[in-house]
């Protein structure tokens, strides 16, 4: 049974903002199909009523006091940026035909 097809791979690549060549997408759909086939084994287990573990250590989230720390030097904040103007990051504009 096939779990995933090319068009689903394309949709996922779009969601994940990846640009895959045809060849890569085809290969990925085969590999993912085989992986999803493998994880089918989990369906042997009846997990009804079992509380999901999203965290291995059962605690409640700690909270900090509302004390502001000095902000990072703006020059340092943008130093790693591929493109900046003043103290702002610069990105290409959204083109109308692009879906967001």
């Amino acid at each position, binding site marked *: 049974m096939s779990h995933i097809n090319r068009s689903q791979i394309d949709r996922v690549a779009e969601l994940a903002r990846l640009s895959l060549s045809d060849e890569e997408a085809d290969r990925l759909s085969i590999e993912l199909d085989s992986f999803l086939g493998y994880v089918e084994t989990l369906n042997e287990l009846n997990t009804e009523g079992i509380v999901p573990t999203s965290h291995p250590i059962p605690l409640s989230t700690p909270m900090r006091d509302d004390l502001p720390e000095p902000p990072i030097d703006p020059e340092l904040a943008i130093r790693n940026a591929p493109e900046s103007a003043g103290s702002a990051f610069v990105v*290409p504009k959204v083109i109308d035909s692009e879906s967001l």
Partner: protein
Amino acid sequence: MSTAFATIDELRTALDSGKSSVVEIVTDCIERAEASQDSIHAFIGLRAAGAIDDAKRADARRASGEVLSPLDGIPVAIKDNMVQAGEPTTCASRILEGFVSPYTATAVERLERAGAIIIGRTNMDEFAMGSSTEHSHFGPTRNPWDLTRTPGGSSGGSAAAVAAGIVPAALGSDTGGSIRQPAAFCGVVGMKPTYGRVSRWGLVAFASSLDQIGAFARTARDCAEVIEVIAGHDHRDSTSIPAPVPHYAESFHGDLNGVTLGIPTEYFEAEGVDSDVLESVRAAIGQFEKAGAKTVEVSLPHTRYAIATYYLIANAEASSNLARFDGVRYGHRSRDANGLTQMYRKTRSEGFGTEVQRRIVLGTYVLSAGYYDAYYRKAQQVRTLVRSDFERAFETCDALVTPTSPEVAFAFGDKTDDPLTMYLSDIYTASANLAGIPGVSIPCGRVGGLPVGLQLLGKPLDETTPLRVADAYQRATDHHLHHAGSSE
């Protein structure tokens, strides 16, 4: 003295007696690292100048009788997924091209405060995704025991750096076995503490609920010393456990009287396990009994579901954790993109390697509308089952003994064709990450000249028992004293 293959203990003795200075030790260390880059390629970047400066300061401290900790002046390497202020961090990825961190990871900061000298950043599978260190943008690391074989992964650079005698200790991170499996492949000690023991602040996330920083060293005692320094509560990590860190060596009695070790049946009956590996592990179990340990058979019935569960959870979390690498604030940005969406897509596909993109696609898919319950929630429920397996097993024993990996170090390219085969090599290690429990791998013999690793798993927050068992074993045997290139 020659500092190659020296333990932390030996270096400290040399420093205390005045036979060596920190500058000498660190200079030696960096020379060895540079000399081995062509063959082993354990490092992505060396901190030569910075490390020598730090060494001078350590010598000055020593001269004025002000030693910061037992690690003061000891050279340590860090995996290139932990940030250090003013230094690059790459995660072995092109996507972090040019990134220099403005802040320091807690684990690294604690090493610095203890006076340890950070000598460089070690190679790894890109974003810690892999079991062979083949998936590095900067090229693979080779196993010091056999250069045609992988050092394991993803912390292969750290394991190889210790195995090649370059540094006495190194930090790694372990999400599904990324410290323990390369430790086994390279014949060194490698420990992943309890989830939450070592702060993840400054560790570039792969899978947040599984990632844990740990250490490599030549002996259990050295490993314990490093863990002691980096462990402990940190308010910057919400998942950090507010529990005191024991002085582990206090419990190293040499004997194992009163310790009950559990032997999980499923781990010794798994498919595709090398029988020679099993034999080495069984021989070690005999040694534990000789030292006074009792052994009992235990069952971990959900073991066969662990890999599927692990990869579903890890990749889902990774797909979200890696969204921040978008070419906006740091790292690589594609030069030939038209418009924002194309900039994102080209940047990410140019920046991430094949394995990383594969996992992002898989993780995105299992979280997407309509599949969440079938895959992600299901995996989290099975995670609960895996956890309770361990809880039940620990009712009858203090620690578990298993092989670390089903086989010894494999050759380059052996598992790159079929990702699933690669994933299956994490069979003995991934469960511990799902359950959040501590585990240590120690060398317990060799098969065909290559080291075999034995894994000891402890109860949550009990790093002490696995370390104590490992130490007792190393007092009674000499497997840890052999190293790549040493004569039998």
